[in-house]
């Protein structure tokens, strides 16, 4: 007979339907001083049949109630054990009831009669723990427990226990954590995660107070803290990537080694990282999308701190944290995040979340074959769309005084080395954004054509141009890059018409491309940096006139024949009016000029000369709504995407919070050290 832990014996009593507390008035106090064996609880619950589960309802209720009561005491060890007990109960019972109605679970766990009051007091205790003067560890554990609760079901919207969380909000506590200078960096990730998940609960069906509260949050410190947390994690990812990509340059052998290595390890690691960032991206998205003030935080410049160490604690102890906590701060594990390697040197320069995010996007959008990556890239583009729609973000991005060096990573391709510019010029952010878009356009012309991403990419370009046009911002940007990229896109569409047209509405995409050109053609005077660039635009169009011609004829084809894209094709034709006018106007002139000068081919300068000389005879049609765009809206179009994303994130998070017992040990150790 194996010696059983005392606690296990007690548990067994519970599972036998006994109530060991009956005879012992101090029973509960003692129980929660014992180290919890969560695995035992969970496995015991697993073993139970539906029937016996129901029979044990009272005991579960009692345990749950007592555990939540223990949180109100002042013994930290009891609190920790109580939290673990709660975690075990929630996990075990929810696992049991997959597929069942949630209310069943609530009844089993808490009991319908008392659920409301018990949950209220439980959440109040949690709030106390989160905001009160307790060890960081305990705070962390409470967050973990909340995560356990939130991720109890696969579909968060079916987790009816969350209703109680809507009633008794933890939002304020989370905000407080985010705004805190000391515990923010430690607990921030969990807090952000929890907040993000809470926002997801039935967000398409009912009014979720977390959505509302997040959307009107105007605590600048909390927002900045939020941004900082996201930024830190993203830049960690960036650093990892950089370190990876740096390796090959060291030598032939190491290159080979790393190549081999990366085949198995690095790739794996990358994927892992990316998945870990799903939740982070979602958090960034929710904040950007919901909260108008977050844009400020997004563009709040700061000097990055080496992400491995939490920011040095200020000399003055903050009000929320006890001085004794100083010791924990350094040792506190940042759990599932892998320890990042030493930061690279460039990062001493001030940066902001947007910069980090652009860099991150340049990595994530490189490859989209894998579904996870695709989703990641998609989310990135959605966030960028939101940003590009925002006036304030635009004004920051266009501010010539705010220049940043953004390391945009380029994918190695057949015709180029790719890689990253080691020392990118310091430019307004908008240039980097456009570069990123151009890069995306150029690097995804492939068989598995990411149509959706292309549409989003063009949407971003379009939005930026609209802003520039409306506010007459002239940025010094080599627009020619963009034009060339767009023309190559058209060319790709043309050449893969047969293949693509089966899956996508390429006319829609082509229309978008053409409309970007139209913006330049008709409104170039408002945002082009100089007259020469306008000439160059014409030059590009004339030079590649064949592609436009072909697009036109392709569209024509689809309009004449009956097909599902008939309308789109017709629209495209309509949009091509000005381009065609330009081509038709200038081509003869150029030819005539060539002929007149007896030249076989013309230099660019010569063509430009012709162009300059013949503007006046060209009349353009002012097209409708060139500078209008459909605002991004999550509902209804993106709903499935996000629901799916949330599902993956939930399962990820659930995995990360399954094994808390190791933490438990640490926490207890630390607690004992403190007390």
């Amino acid at each position, binding site marked *: 007979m194996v010696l059983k832990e005392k606690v296990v014996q007690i548990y067994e009593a519970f599972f036998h339907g006994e109530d060991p507390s009956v005879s012992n008035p101090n029973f509960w106090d003692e129980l929660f001083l014992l180290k919890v064996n969560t695995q035992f609880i969970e496995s015991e619950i697993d073993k139970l049949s539906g029937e016996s589960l129901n029979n044990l309802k009272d005991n579960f209720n009692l345990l749950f109630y007592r555990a939540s009561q223990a949180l109100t005491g002042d013994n930290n060890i009891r609190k920790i054990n109580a939290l673990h007990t709660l975690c075990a109960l929630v996990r075990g019972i929810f696992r049991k009831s997959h597929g069942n109605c949630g209310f069943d679970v609530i009844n089993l766990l808490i009991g319908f009669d008392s659920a*409301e009051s018990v949950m*209220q007091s439980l959440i109040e205790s949690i709030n106390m723990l989160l905001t009160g003067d307790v060890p960081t560890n305990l705070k962390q554990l409470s967050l973990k427990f909340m995560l356990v609760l939130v991720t109890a079901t696969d579909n968060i919207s079916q987790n009816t226990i969350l*209703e109680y969380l*809507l*009633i*008794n*909000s933890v939002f304020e506590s989370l905000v407080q954590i985010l*705004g805190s*200078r000391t515990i923010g960096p430690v607990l921030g990730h969990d807090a952000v995660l929890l907040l993000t998940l809470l926002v997801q609960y*039935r967000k398409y069906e*009912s*009014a979720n*107070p977390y959505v*509302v*509260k997040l*959307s*009107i949050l105007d605590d*600048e*410190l909390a927002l900045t803290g939020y941004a900082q947390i996201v930024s830190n994690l993203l830049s960690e990812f960036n650093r990892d990537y950089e370190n990876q990509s740096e390796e090959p340059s060291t030598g032939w052998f190491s290159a080979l080694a790393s190549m081999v290595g990366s085949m198995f390890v690095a790739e794996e690691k990358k994927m892992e990282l990316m998945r870990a960032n799903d939740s982070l991206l979602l958090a960034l998205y929710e904040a950007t*999308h919901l*909260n*108008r003030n977050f844009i*400020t935080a997004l563009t*709040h*410049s*700061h*000097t990055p701190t080496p992400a491995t160490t939490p920011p040095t604690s*200020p000399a*003055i102890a903050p*009000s929320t944290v006890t001085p004794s906590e100083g010791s924990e701060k350094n040792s506190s594990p940042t759990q599932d995040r892998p320890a990042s390697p030493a930061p690279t040197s460039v990062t001493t*320069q*001030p940066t902001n979340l947007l910069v980090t995010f652009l860099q991150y996007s340049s990595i994530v959008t490189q490859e989209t074959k894998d579904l996870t990556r695709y989703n990641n890239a998609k989310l990135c583009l959605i966030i960028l769309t*939101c940003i590009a*729609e925002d*006036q*304030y973000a635009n004004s920051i991005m266009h501010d010539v*005084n*705010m*220049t940043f060096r953004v390391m945009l990573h380029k994918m190695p391709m057949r015709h180029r080395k790719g890689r990253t510019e080691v020392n990118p010029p*310091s430019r307004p952010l908008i240039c980097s954004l456009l570069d990123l878009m151009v890069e995306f356009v150029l690097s995804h012309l492939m068989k598995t054509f990411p149509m959706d991403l292309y549409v989003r990419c063009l949407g971003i370009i379009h939005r930026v141009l609209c802003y520039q046009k409306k506010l*007459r911002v002239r940025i010094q940007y080599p627009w020619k890059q963009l034009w060339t990229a767009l023309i190559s896109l058209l060319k790709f569409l043309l050449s893969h018409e047969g293949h693509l047209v089966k899956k996508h509405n390429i006319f829609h995409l082509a229309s978008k491309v053409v409309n970007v050109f139209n913006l330049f*053609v*008709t*409104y170039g*005077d*408002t945002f082009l940096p*100089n007259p020469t660039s*306008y000439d160059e635009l014409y030059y590009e169009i004339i030079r590649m006139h064949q592609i436009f011609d072909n697009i036109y004829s392709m569209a024509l084809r689809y309009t004449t024949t009956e097909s599902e894209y008939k309308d789109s094709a017709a629209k495209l034709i309509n949009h091509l009016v000005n381009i065609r006018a330009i081509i038709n106007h200038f081509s003869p002139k150029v030819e005539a000029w060539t002929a007149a000068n007896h030249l076989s081919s013309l230099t660019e300068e010569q063509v430009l000369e012709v162009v300059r000389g013949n503007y006046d*005879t060209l*009349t*353009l*049609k*002012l*097209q*409708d*709504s*060139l500078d209008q765009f459909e*605002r991004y*809206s*999550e509902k209804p179009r993106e709903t499935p995407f996000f629901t799916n994303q949330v599902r993956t994130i939930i399962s990820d998070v659930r995995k990360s919070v399954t094994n808390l017992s190791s933490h438990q040990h640490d926490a207890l150790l630390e607690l004992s050290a403190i007390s």
Partner: protein
Amino acid sequence: MATTELKDPPFHLTSHNSVRLPQLPSASSATSPPTSPPAGAHQPCNHQVSSDIQVHSTAKHHNHVTASTERGSRSFPAPVLGPLLPHPGKALSPEEAAAAADREVNGNYYPHSANSGVGVKQGSDLPSKDCSFAQDSSSNSSELVLKMPGHACRFGSDDSINGNSLRPAPSNADDCEVTANGDIRYECGDSQNVPKRYRENGLREIDFQAVEQQCGLPYVVTDGALRSLSSSSSLSSSLSCQKSESAQTGSHVTFQIGENGLPEDKENNSLNNHHTSSLTSISSSASTSSSLYLKRQRSGSATGSFDGSLERIVEDQVSVHPLPAPVLERSLSCSVVEAPHSRTSTRSSSHDNSDSASCSSVEGMILGGLTSHHNLPSNSEVIDNAAPSPVPDPAAGESVPAACDWTTVPSKDSSQNASAGSNKENETSSSTVDKLYPGETAGRPKSLDPRSLCLPLPFRFLSSKTSSSSPTGKGKSVLEAKSPSGSAPGGPRHVSKARPAPKQSWLLRLFESKMFDMSIAIQYLYNSKEPGVQTYIGNRMFSFEESEVDFYLPQLLNMYIHMHDVAEAIHPYLLHRCRSSVEFSVNSAWLLSAFSADTFKPNWKNSQGIKLRDMILNEELRPQVSSPTATSPGSKPFGNTQHSHPHHHKSHHHHHSRLQAGNTGSPASFLVGTLPQYLAIPVGEASKNSGQPIATRVPLEVSTISQPSTPDSSVSSLGLANHTSHTSAALALLSTAPQLSEAAASTVVKKTHQRSRSDATALLSKQHSESSPVLSSMILMGNSNVVRGADTGRTRGQAGGTAVGDLTSGRAFDSGCCCYSKSEAVINDLRGVETLCQCDAPRLLPQQEFIKALLNIGKKLQALSTKEHRTSQLIAELALVNLNLPARVWLPISHSRNHHVVRIPHTQAVVLNSKEKAPFMLYVEVLKCDHASTSQVPHKILENTLRFTRSEEDLTQLEGGGDGSNRSPSMAPSATGSPRPEFSVYSSSCHDFDDADCWSQEDDDIIALANRCRSSDTISQMSTESSTSADSKDPVYIAAGDIRRRLSDNLTAPKKKFERDPEDPSAAALKEPWEDKVARIKATSPYGHLPNWQLMSVIVKVGDDLRQELLVYQVLKRLKTSWAEERLPLWIKPYKIVVTDRDSGMIEPVLNAVSLHQIKKHSKLSLLDYFIHEFGPVNSEEFLTAQRNFVESCAGYCLVCYLLQLKDRHNGNILLDSEGHIIHIDFGFILSISPGKNLGFENSPFKLTHEFVEVMGGLGSDMFEYFKILMLQGFVASRKHMDKILPLVEIMQTGSQLPCFSKGISAIRAFKDRFHFGSTEEQLQLIVDGLVESSLHSLTTKLYDGFQYFTNGIL
């Protein structure tokens, strides 16, 4: 007849004063008829006395006024006082406030004795003249009275004096105790004056004064004034000497001395009598103190060595350390006195809540004094012993002919003081004494003054009582010895009258003339070694406009640092200003550290600057009155206590030992007894008024004591039992030595008992009682507890501001004071009433932190190499700073301080061109407010304004949801009752929250709005509209040619802007017209819509010494004023400098100006062409205007360059503004130094290149001639005002390590020579022509430009 009239009005006045401001006018009218019709407040022709007195008296007045207002409700009516005051005193003293004020005056006065002492000394030198002077003076005064009835003020003072003298002695004149009363009487005179002055100046001034009063001004003022007077006029003192010689009775003699030779002792006495007892007490206290002091002197000398008078001044006066000891001592004596006379004391307490002991009536005082002596023979003995010993020295030192023993004593004091300035040895001894017993110092003449200023009144006169009452002959002598000191105040006035001496008179006349302004004052302050003159000026400064004085702040502080006699003279003023103004405090602290930095090793000679700075930075100079309600005489002593207290803590052990060693145990017990009184009484009073104010006022321990006590306030009297408690508290504070405390405790108990039996006026006792239980408990807990309590008090004060200085906290500039955010404050705000901070939050810290944050940025930038790095770092750092705004901070560079910084548009900040230093310019958005330190700090508005408003709409839209959930964390339980049930969690169906709504089309409206802001070319606008509204099916056509043309037009249009150049980011920023920039930033700022929004800019420079710049700024400012006075069109632009330390500071940017270098670089045009480009063709109006501006500014700056020998004049240091003015910047090389190791690269008088002349129209052109004429005129004008300019520079040379003074005094001499004072105008013209000529043809200018081009790339 006349006398009576004279007599009456003052009383009237006083009562009126006490009643309240508005009534004053009537009072004045009553007063005026007999003496003189009211006239301008300051009569230039009058003697200084009048003016001084006015000033001071007004200040005093305030006390009255405030006190009265405060107590109005609670006031102790005349009846109460009636019995106490034998006489007219009734009429006079209905208000204790008045009494208090008087007392204060008195306290100030006795220091005068010092002056008189000085006078004596001088008098001794010129004994023969004395008589005549006296006569003259008397005749003079009478004449004045007759001739110049118009000058109410002066008359007031004169009258009081004369009238008193003429008056038959009132019944009370009898008392011998009244010895010191002469002083008192004078004070009466003062008080009289006060009202008059009042009247004249009107309410406004009064208010002003009232404000000043809070800062404890009155003490200082009176004191200094009197002293100055007496000292300045040595004659007066001599007079007094004479009289003393001829004195009939010892007591009389004393009086005379005190009064400085007024014959009419009796009247004085009578006056004294009617004046409140407090007066007497004061004077007597003075004497006491002196006696004690003598005692101490001995002990002190025995104890140890002290640095010297300076030290003494600094420390004592500054009140940090030395004060407490004396205070204690005095208080001891007082307590002793009072103890027996419980009745009196109580009365007095009723009189003035604050200092009961001090207030005791004359009789009581006397009695008390007597008793005390009796009770404490040891003490008196000590005194006796002490008295004789000093005598010999002074006697020897002075040639006063027939000085009696007692007379000599005072004279000795005076002599000591007098000698203090010059005689180091004497000083040292005296200083030692002083240091030991700073309080005592009051009795001493010169050196004492400063201290006495600082000391709370009660102390002062309390101590004096003992001596005054001493029955024995020796005691008398002591008294007399004291009395001179006390009487001194009277003396000065007489002196003023009697000051016929021609030499004095011209100076006096000058000082009293309208001409006398700050610039003259500063000059005399610097040049005069006469302490009297210095003190006079020191006091006179109170009457100058603050802004006027502020202009000379660098000079003042430099003198403060390097000239200790001046330091003494101006110390009161500085203290006063520091108390009243945070800004002044901050500025002073900066300047002090900047200029003190030069002295490497602080010693007794130069440490006062540092000490003052530390005092300011330690927040020891807080306004003494916390709230309008709390304003009272009582509160004043408090304020002082603040200073003394901290010291207390530290020093008391020390002190103790000394006590024990030097004195018998009894003094210790006294000490114990009095201290608590003094502590507790004010506390009680304050607590009565309102619990909280105390905390503010009362520093550490006191506050802690008082706070706990407040809750008990409702408890009615335990009688005076509270005293016990206080005492015991004091004990706790004081005594570490158990024995001592025991002894003291016993005494105390006895005393209290007596008191409680006495006719307790309920009010006071009640107040006292409130605090008693707590206090007693605290005593039990002992000293440490108190200390700890103090600490906690402090921490509490800072609790809110834990984050001060931590930029990431978002509250880095939050002092933690929430007094202004309370509802009360809000109401006050609405009513236009100022709220006063009542918590202990640091006043200066936010501002300091703000500036520190900016300077730190500068430091960080220095570490970066490229402009690009610097720029991005700068922006990031500023964004961080921004997180902490708005805050109660202001931009020191701005000319008006009343604003709050709300935001720094961080993206607009630019790094300026400099290689190793990284100066940067930033813009600061501020909101104007009524008063920066009291108005509400604006609320934070988030950056993303437009979206923010939209969020609010969301909120309303979802109201139930957003709102409800916000308010109640637990929404559901109560949600059933929530206004919008559909928002409850379960009702998913009824309200579908559409988050897509957050991104509505509203932004288009925003864009439209933004578009409206920019009224650029409308053509494309048209196209926009057409495109958006193109629902009409007929297509719109545009010509491609038009598009391109617009594009090119747009870009080739004459730009007022420079292209942004990452290597020179400041060029574009500076070139942008200020108005445009303001409009632009305003449009984007979340605060821009507020009507009081303003944009300011500042250059922050770290690593550069801006002290020279500051000096040049002052000179330029002065020059500009001079030229304006002469109506010359010469133009210069002095830009403001704030020196924050030796190597950092801030500069006011010159708006709309770019350097010639930048112009050349960006426009690639010659200067003339640039003018044409900017302003139009040569004959256009704009061009001509610009050209004229150019010439006028050029003339101005050429003169400046020549006079100051500005060097390093490359094109990067010469700006051109948008109106064509040139402006020189960067004054790093002036006077005797030039770049390149003074090798004389630029030896031309000024930079006048051919390019400049070209803009002027070429050689020989009209404008060029005009230029030369302007130069000449400007030269003549500057020469005329030379004496206002020279001192600026000269003073700064004192003790300065500034590079520009590296050649020492010769730099000044050369500077002076450049004014060519001896030349005729014709000669000057030649000189100017020569200068122009040589500058034009100077090779070195070209060489230097070339050199700069090659080395620094400056075109």
